[in-house]
């Protein structure tokens, strides 16, 4: 650290950066919640991402996509710490939908609890791609966050949507060979 302190320009940059951090906290929490499905763990992830971003603020290039930069920090932390340490818990007590033993949606529209439970069944890479797509990022920005080619992003989104659709549609109602016919008495 310089003995002469922080320059006014740097202080202005820090103030602006801090304001950007504050503004993005709700989105960070939402992304983290979608990734890990656990409220407390998600908030831990988001706080770690904030702290890491502040520590690395000098490496952020003003004018580039701050949202994508923050999401990338958070997802990297998710994969490096949470998944590797096997602390990943798909769903917690405040979201009991994961306890259901049968797939949902017997008519009507999509319930958010069903969607959360369906997300929890996806591989993390597909879940991440679907979440980022709806976060407002562009395709190339998603690829940058996920650090993979654009084609991989599209593939993960297609497969993720398909898996979610199948989950939300529930089991097919085909009659199994040899099954006894249903009788109404």
């Amino acid at each position, binding site marked *: *650290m*310089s*003995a002469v*302190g*922080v320059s006014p320009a740097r*202080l202005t940059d*820090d*103030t602006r950066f*801090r304001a950007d*951090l*504050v503004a993005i*906290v*709700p*989105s960070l*929490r*939402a*992304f983290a*919640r*979608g990734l890990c499905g656990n409220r407390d763990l998600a*908030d831990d992830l*988001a*706080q770690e991402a*904030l*702290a890491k971003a*502040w520590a690395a603020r000098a490496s952020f290039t003003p004018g580039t996509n701050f949202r994508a930069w923050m999401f990338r920090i958070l997802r990297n932390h998710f994969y490096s710490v949470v998944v590797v340490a096997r602390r990943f818990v798909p769903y917690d007590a405040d979201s009991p939908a994961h306890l259901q033993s049968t797939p949902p949606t017997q008519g*009507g*529209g*999509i*319930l*958010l609890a069903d*969607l*959360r439970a369906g997300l929890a069944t996806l591989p993390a890479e597909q879940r991440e791609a*679907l*979440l980022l*797509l*709806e*976060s407002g990022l562009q395709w190339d920005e998603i690829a940058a966050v996920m650090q993979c080619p654009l084609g991989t992003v599209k593939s993960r989104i297609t497969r993720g*949507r398909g898996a*979610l*659709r199948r989950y*939300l549609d529930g089991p097919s109602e085909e009659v199994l060979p040899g099954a006894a016919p249903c009788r109404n008495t």
Partner: protein
Amino acid sequence: MSKMVAKTVARGTRMTKKDMEPDGPGESPRRLSRKALRPDDQISAGLRQLWAVVEQEPLPDEFLDLLDAIDKRRDEGAAR
């Protein structure tokens, strides 16, 4: 459902505000109408709503404490 959630969910889809209203008395307002949306649209709208629900939650104190700590560090840097 708040107007903000409805607006967020409707963003980028063909849904109208009316589509976000409950289909009838007693129905959950968090049920997305199937009438106006294709399956992929329903999933997109649902994911956007998941984002919106969390984004509207009040910030836990831990985040405010962290931001305060950042302020403190920044002020300390400025004082040097």
